[in-house]
Each structure stands twice: as C-alpha cells, then as structure tokens.
C-alpha cells in the first residue's frame, strides 16, 4: 500500500498533493531550458497543451514514485 507522508511546517500540516504539485512545477521549470534547446515548441502544433501534458506526466510520476 502506497502511503503519502504529510509535510509539517511549524505544526501546520500540508497536504501531500500540494508538495507533489510544487515539486512537479519546480522540475518543470528546471526542464524548460532543455526543452528550449530541443525545440520543444516546434515539435507540437499546440505547445501549450503539450507543456501542460508534460507537467501532468511529471506530477503523476512523482505521485507514483514517492
């Protein structure tokens, strides 16, 4: 059974999903220079949806892996 650990900041419980969402956002922004070098925007007809899908994929991977 996969257990989600809560982040506790000074007696304040932060939902695990918030931690995953923020971590996924940080990874996504760290990947952006690499995406630019790969010409990510030119690979898709709608780069905005492609970027959103990438973010969701990272978030899903983090949730499954940790």
């Amino acid at each position, binding site marked *: 059974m996969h257990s989600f650990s809560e982040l506790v900041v000074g007696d*304040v419980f932060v939902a695990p999903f918030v931690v995953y969402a923020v971590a996924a956002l940080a990874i996504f922004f760290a990947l*952006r220079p690499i*995406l*630019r070098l790969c010409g*990510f*925007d030119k690979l898709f007809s*709608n*780069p*905005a*949806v492609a*970027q*959103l899908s990438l973010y969701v994929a990272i978030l899903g991977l983090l949730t499954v892996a940790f």
Partner: protein
Amino acid sequence: MTTATIPRPLSFAGAPPSAWAFGVRIWVAVVAALAASFWLELEAPASAAVTVAILAVPTRGGALDKARFRLAATIIGVTAAIVIVALFSQTRDLMLAVFAAWVGLCVCAAGLLDGNHAYAAVLSGYTVALIAIQQLDAPEHVFESGMARGAAIAVGVAAIAVVNDLLAAPDSFPQLASQLAALHRRVRDYAKPVLRDEATDAGTAAGLLRDIAALRPEIASLATESASGSIRRAAARSTAVALVAAVHAARALKAVVAATNPAMDDMIAASAHSPASAWASRESLRRISEVREGLAALNAGHRPLCVWRMPLYRSRAIAAAAGLRAAACLVLASGFFVLAGWPSAEVSLSLVALVIGLGAVSPNPQGFTVAAFIAAPIAAVLAGTLEFLILDGVTEFPLLALALAPFVIGAMVAATRPHPMVASLGRLNLIFILVILSPSNPQSYNANSFLFVVLFLCTGIGLLLAAETLIPPESNERRQSWIMASVRRDFELVLSKRDRRLAPEEAMFRDAARIGQIPASGASHRDSAVLAQALSYFDRAAAIRLGRDSVARLAETSLSHLAAEAEEALATQDTQRLRDVSLALMHVAGAGSALAEEISGELTLAAIVIDAARHAASPAMEAVS
C-alpha cells in the same frame, strides 16, 4: 472597370469572435475554479472565482505572469498581516494607522515599479486588508484566514492556467510583434524628410518614445509564456531599445539637414554635400536594420544579435506622493468608520483598500475610483438579479454555472472594448458581482447579508471618492517640474561621466521611459515647451554617450590624446572643439582610415546634435520659466 470589395471583419453583437472566445474562456475558468473549491471544501471559494476575474487577461502569457506575481504577493501580504496583527491586535487605532502606512508603502513601491511588479506591490498591501482588517475582531483567526485565501488563490490560478492552455488562449508574442512592427512603421515615417514645426515634431517624437516605452510590461511577461519565452523576451527588448535608438538617429539626421542647409529638405541631396549627413543617414539606416533584425528574431524565436536591457525610470517624488496620498485617504476612511461605530465596517474598509490598490496601478487612479463608483451599483443590481431572480434558492452546481455565463461573458466582452471607461466598467463589474454574490456551498440566499455587502461596497467607494476629492493629486505642472528636475540631475551625471552603468542605447531607453511619464497632452504651449526641453536633454545625452562610446575605441591607439581631448569637449559640450578634434582626427589618421572616418563622423554629428538641441531648448526654457 474592376472593383474590389474588402470583407468586413467577422463580429457578433458588435464584438469580434476573439472577444467572445475570451469571455467563454473566463466563464469556464470561473466555473472550474468554483467546482474545484467546492470539491476541496475550501473556506473561501469566492476568492478562487475573484482570482480568475482579476487574472482575466486575453493572452496566455499575460495571465500566467500575473498569476505568478499574485501568488508571491499573497505570501508577502499574509506574512505582513500576521506580523501587524501580532504586534498591534490590542490597539485598534494604532493597528489601523499601521495598516494605512503599510498600504501607503505598497502604493509607493508600486509607483517605483511597472506592470505585474507594481500589481504585486499593491496586492501585498490590500491582502492585509482582506486578512487582518476583516478579522479585526477575531485576530486569532488571521492565520486560518490567510491559509484559506492562499488556497483559494492557488486554485484560481490553476483553473485559469489549465483553461487557457486547453482552450488555446492566444500567445502574447504575435500581438506584441505586430505592435512593434506598427511602431517601426511610425519611426520610419518620422524619419522621412517632412517639414514640421518644432512643437509638432516634439509632440510626434515624444508620442513615439512614450508608446515604445509603454510596451515594457508586456515584453517582461513574455518569459513565462513558453519554453522559448525568455529568448523572445530578449528579442522584444532589443527591438524596443533599437526603436528608441532609431528615433534618436532620425532626430540627429533632421538636425544635420537643418544645420547643413536650412532651406534644403532633401536628405539624400544633403548627404551628398556633407560627411556628417552621410554618417547620420548611415546611422539611421543601421538603427532601422537593427529593429528589423530584432523583429525577425522575435517572430522566429531566435536570440537577437544585440542583447540590450530595458531599464525602468520611475520618479521617486511622484511615487512617494502617491503613497502618502493613499495612506491619507485610508486614514480618513478609517477615521470615518471608527467615528460612525458601524458594525462590520471592516468589510467596507478592506474594499476601500482594494480600490486604492487597484487604482494605483491603473493609468488614471482618480478615473478608476469614478469607474468603481459607477460600477458598484450596476454590479449590485446585476448580482441581485442573479441571486434572487435567476438562481432564487437553486442548489445545483450546473444551474449556478449556467446562470453565471451571461454575466461573466458579457462583462469580459465589455472589458475588451476600446473605450477605457467601458473596459474598466466590464472588468470591475465582474469582480464586484463575484464579491457580492460570494458563491458558497451551500449558497445562503440571505437578502440581509446581500444588502449589507452592497451598502458597504457603495459606502466604501463613495467615501474613497470623497477622500480623493479632499486630497487632490499633485498637479501636472508639479509632476512635470519633478521629472524635469530629475532630467537635469541625470544630465549632470552624463556630463561628469558618472553614468557608465548602462550601454548608450539602454540609457536612451531609460530617458525615453522618463519622457513617456511626463504628463503632457501637448495641447498647451507649456506642455509643448516641457516636451521640447526634455527632448533636447534626451538628444544631447544620447549624442554625448554615443560620442564617448565611439572615442573609447581610440584609447589604446596612438591617437589616445585626441580621444582624451574629445572626452573633455563632450563633457563641456564644447561643439567647436569637437569639430576641431574631428578634423584633426581625419588629418592625423589620413583619408584611408575607416575607424578614424567613423569616429570623426560621430563627433561632428554629436556637435551638430548638441547645437540643435540647445537651440531648440532655449525658447522652451523661456516658456517653462
């Protein structure tokens, strides 16, 4: 005979399809934000919907950038609220005074920034009102209230980001590229040899510089739009800076033509007669080609050849005055509510702070308060119709979503209209409707609380309007004198070689941004004179910086003594000496040296521009004094 018909642009009820698409996107985002907030059982679901209304920007990049600053500013505001409540919760009057000082400080900071940075500054101010002041009687709930607001804002931000991505909201850069291209055409038209009187010429140049500098916030928001956003931002920055340099080059060319032969109005003929004219024409063409390269890089998403920054100019005196005025207005409003002793007046006070904050980042704060004063009763009628006539006790979410559609879409279509008052009313109406309706799960449909909120909203804005009338803003003349004092101070720094932080083109952009902030319609004689004087300083400072940059290349050569002499001549604005150095340079280096020819041309051009600018400034100075 053949006739050509121009197809009429597609429109529905007087608005283009893009405006309707924008309205639909915002409606979907409001519904998604409310659905997520209800599902997550957030304490302040209305804040999520209001967040979407505030982040309602037609382009994807603009909304994302604003969202980023909204999140950061909420964190700062909540922290400030907790600190203020922790220190002053036992002394209500002192707490209100500190709150007014904090809002004043934030408005002052907004005056020193632009675009979404300024918005973040005022948001940090009025977040304290929404958290600390609304919990004035229950300070122990400040932390929970802050968390609830933060969560609702995060949901609102996520809703608008996802909806904009999925419903293909347009990118900012094509629109920005077309705006820059339109400015490029205007700069080329300005550079054409057309006879204008000095006042018209100053008005046209100042208008161009103002419009170029006004694009700075939009350019800054390009970075968040896509993976190549930061490169496009660099390209757009370079294009804007090159446009300002092109305006200066066009003015220099005009000065040279006027100096070589005042009767002659043909620049090509002039360039054949004078090496300075030839050099000025070449410079003008070089700047125009830099603009073209920047535009091509922006459209293609390539890094530009020249990477320039866009330094911001803001008058500290004007910002401080705006901050003091905001604090004074808030003190007056707080004093009124304390003396009146009304229950729940803190809601009204927090709305006053909100309108002060949003007004501070609008181009016309007084006009914004008037628009809010008109929008509040309209929004009250619309929200009442929605709550008590259309919904009237409904508890199903799909019906709420459907009922919101005409109000949200209509308000957003109005917000895209070109008339500034209609646009402000549209935007404010959506925010006020959501604040008054305050969707919750389950909806209370309490007529008593509806009337209280409407009363507080209208009283608060009415009171603010009265306070702003009692404490009028500084006159245009005063603001002009503050900006002109800063122009003169900076020019002294240019002469004393203490402004070496920026490249000449970047410094030109900063000067252009300052000219853009001079409050002048150009209609009165005084306004024209102030603009002419500011442009005279702009031309001289640019010529001196470019001249210095040019002679710096001689520093390590055998002609370094001439470089030092040219530096001195530039510092004292001794134009005759500059011409002598220019001739000496050509004489010593010989006719074959391209570098010497180039620097000699630059120095002669600087001398002509300085003379022309002094000549233009002298009648202007008399008019201003």
